[in-house]
């Protein structure tokens, strides 16, 4: 695997000014956001029955164990659905359209899904089922890294 760092000319796919993620005050997803800063992708997994779940919950939806852990995944995914956004619904997005949002399923984590942007040409053809690889987009000023995706080479 090559570098997991965003290497396009822009430092972020979308302009600055959008709301940045903050770990939930109740601590539910602190580990997830801590990990993205280290360029690691984590999915919650039940320590009792090994069921994966995302977004995180306080208990396993399968066996009701509260003993949940975070499992590092490979960052390989498949495009499950996608959309090309043309109408800006936030002042920061004016001039940034179109852009691509993808819903990615993770085959090595029970096919849980994550949302991100699909890096590269916003007008690229998108095929559902295509393999993608995670890339982390650093936002040091916000103390956070976003989870982005690029079609796997």
């Amino acid at each position, binding site marked *: 695997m090559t570098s997991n760092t965003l290497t396009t000319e822009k430092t972020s796919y979308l302009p600055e000014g959008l709301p940045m993620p903050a770990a939930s005050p109740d601590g539910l997803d602190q580990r997830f956001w801590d990990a993205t800063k280290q360029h690691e992708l984590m999915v919650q997994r039940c320590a009792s029955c090994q069921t994966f*779940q995302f977004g995180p919950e306080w208990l396993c939806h399968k066996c009701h164990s509260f003993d949940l852990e975070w499992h590092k995944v490979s960052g390989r995914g498949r495009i499950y659905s996608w*959309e*090309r*956004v043309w109408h800006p619904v*936030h002042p920061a997005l004016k001039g940034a359209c179109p852009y691509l949002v993808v819903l990615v399923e993770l085959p090595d984590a029970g096919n849980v899904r994550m949302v991100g942007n699909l890096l590269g040409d916003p007008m690229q053809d998108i095929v559902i089922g295509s393999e993608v690889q995670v890339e982390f987009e650093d936002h040091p000023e916000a103390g956070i890294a976003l989870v982005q995706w690029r079609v796997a080479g």
Partner: protein
Amino acid sequence: MSDYTVKDKVAVAGIAETTYYKRGGAPISEMQLTLQAIIAAAEDAGLDPRQIDGFASYSNDRNDPPRLAAALGCDDLSFSNMFWGGGGGGGSGAVANASAALVAGYSKYVVVYRGLAQGQFGRFGQGTQAKTVSGAGAYTAPYGLMSPAQSFAMRVQRFMYEHNGGHEAQKAISLTSYAHAQRNPRAVMHGSPLSPEAYDGARWIVEPFRLFDCCMENDGAAAVIVTTAERARDLKQKPAYVIAAAQGSDYRQAAPAHNAPDYATSNFKTVAKRLWGMAGIEPKDVDVCQSYENFTGGVMMSLVEHGFCSPDEVDDFMTVENFRFDGGKLPLNTSGGNLAECYMHGLELITEAVRQVRGTSTAQVPNVDISMVCSGPMVQPVSDLILRA
């Protein structure tokens, strides 16, 4: 079973709405709009508004029942109810809750109401202006997935992929609403017809939705009075009897970050089953249907999940011809609905369903016996209502 149902035990006895305005266009406050609609609905039923003793709403309506009851000088307040969840998922659900309160004997006359003046409060179609976002929104908003259109386009795109179609169906749904609105003087889009060319040529909002696949945002209020079947027969209007009402959400549909296991769905699969079970009728028995259009793709999936056609034949079944009020197989959204009458959060669909039963719609289907409403596709929870003449 028969003891534990609202079927045939309650009826809608009064309906009303204010003038419908473009978003931000209301010249009076949201509370005043709401009060006007409630008073007019009581008058339509032949009731003194002070006799209303129950209030039910949905989607976090800002006008809470104790304040409304105080303002109206209601003699008593015996039921004060909010259907949880956002969007229009609770339109029929609020009628269902009102029905339950009536059958339980809590209340005598329950008003279901919704008031919206978006110019005075926030807009639905805009993203959050906060600097940070926590919880489920943290997994979507930073990627520019913030609005209802953006949330639901993802589901519809997947449906269109799985079933290899849907464009023509969505177009027909949009054209139908606009065509019916041209007959309805209440409609905000009355006098603004939509051609197939204009639909196809409209700008993208978010693929696969173009401009006319999306509902409007409006100001106004609507209200319906629900009471027991016996009381309804003593009032002014022909009762629209509730023969089924259902609400709910399929397995883990509210799993965060778009993780509902069954994803390409309007969330009506289990609700529809309960609805038909209570009504004791089948889709072919429905004379006219009002199906909530936040976005046309949601209507498409709703009609599939209520059994009107299979998911692989949406483009064949969902045509302007089949949706016409005059001779269509399934007359749809006969007032113009959220797309072209008014985005009254789907309460305008319930007033229209009642008008169809009374025979007073501006796009009246002949001899309506069964009039159906589907409220709020793709949100959690959703709800349904079937009325009978």
